[in-house]
């Protein structure tokens, strides 16, 4: 029910405060999405979409963080495994 799916904004139609909308691609499946709650989101951005509404813009830098962290862990693990 609280499912939100990331999709990429293809077009934006600026409406008034409530009706700002755009076409959003979910891995190729395109839907019309209300963008009123993400005024900062522009074409090319990814947004999290829930029941037809974008509820956040995906922060791509933050999205990488876990992979940086895993890589760090890997290095650390490799270092630990080396005989000292």
């Amino acid at each position, binding site marked *: *029910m*609280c499912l939100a*799916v990331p999709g990429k904004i293809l077009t934006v139609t600026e409406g008034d405060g409530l009706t700002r909308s755009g076409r959003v691609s979910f891995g190729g499946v395109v839907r019309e999405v209300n963008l*009123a709650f993400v*005024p900062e989101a522009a074409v090319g951005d990814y947004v999290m979409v*829930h*029941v037809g*509404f974008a*509820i956040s813009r995906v922060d791509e830098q933050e999205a990488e963080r876990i992979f940086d962290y*895993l890589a760090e862990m890997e290095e650390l693990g490799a270092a630990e495994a080396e005989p000292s």
Partner: protein
Amino acid sequence: MKFIDEYRDARAARKLAAAIARVTTRPWNIMEVCGGQTHAIVKFGIDELLPPQITLVHGPGCPVCVTPVELIDKAVEIAPLPGVIFCSFGDMLRVPGTNGDLLSAKARGADVRVVYSPLDALAVARANPERQVVFFAVGFETTAPANALAVAQAQREGMRNFTLLVSHVLVPPAMEAILASPSNRVQGFLAAGHVCTVMGYEEYAPIAARYRVPIVVTGFEPLDILEGVYLCVRQLEEGRVEVENPYARSVRREGNREARRLIAEVFQVVPRRWRGIGEIPQSGLGLRPAYAEFDAERRFGLAGHGVEEPSECRSGLVLQGVLKPHECPAFGTRCTPEHPLGATMVSSEGACAAYYRYRGVPVRAASS
């Protein structure tokens, strides 16, 4: 798909699981609040990757599951009224009320339509000005902005044939109710990532402090959940109590300002009854007086109903993490997705349905 597939990487998941095992020295009970997380945990077998000391306790975060019977009954009462088109998310159609469900009302001729968004219901109302269109507005904070916007839009357009049957619930009061219960065994929380996307996570700091529980804002993909567990276990092992946010690709500290502003304009906090659990003070949203004309209970004169729930279903205990679904005596026998006794067996995010679908019916050991 970007921002999904990479968070399902099996090798990375095993690495995180190993990291969890390294920091775990004692048993811990951690509750994932949201039913979407429960679904992912059972589907991907995330609980089975964890060291045996970690128990994931499933939480109340399934709006379909906690919608009180009296509201299902009101839906079933409104739907067949002449001139009514009743719109709902598909999940609600098979939730049993006292006298059947919406699907059987539809079978008897009621105009019940499944919609994907409240905006679809609004479009149905625009296209049918001579009919009364009612939208079953269930959901947590995640869905509240969408429903608030639909109402604000209807008001702006001066629509007289669109109302909401509101069953909105709020997550933090439910977390507090669980923590305050004498049967509580939850020691740490994975907070619901999309609820926090809307509301932010500032309101969790007092809860974490008062009940001495770490709260980690957690997403929905396997790596998100494992990272949430990892951070939660580390806090528990180190004796720290903090609110952490590893789901920062979607969640900002203050949440979504625009969404919160519109929720506050259209809705107010009200007491709300949770199916199987009972009334939790200040745990729901109702329409503000300025939007009362969009309240289906008022338009159809149904305010003030109330019924007791059938007793065999233990969903209240399941939703509070006291009982695992397969520990319910009716699970898989008298209660199945085809013949559900409770909403937790209907909703795709209900814990009972997730166990039934992915774990099957356990052969009960002779000793149990």
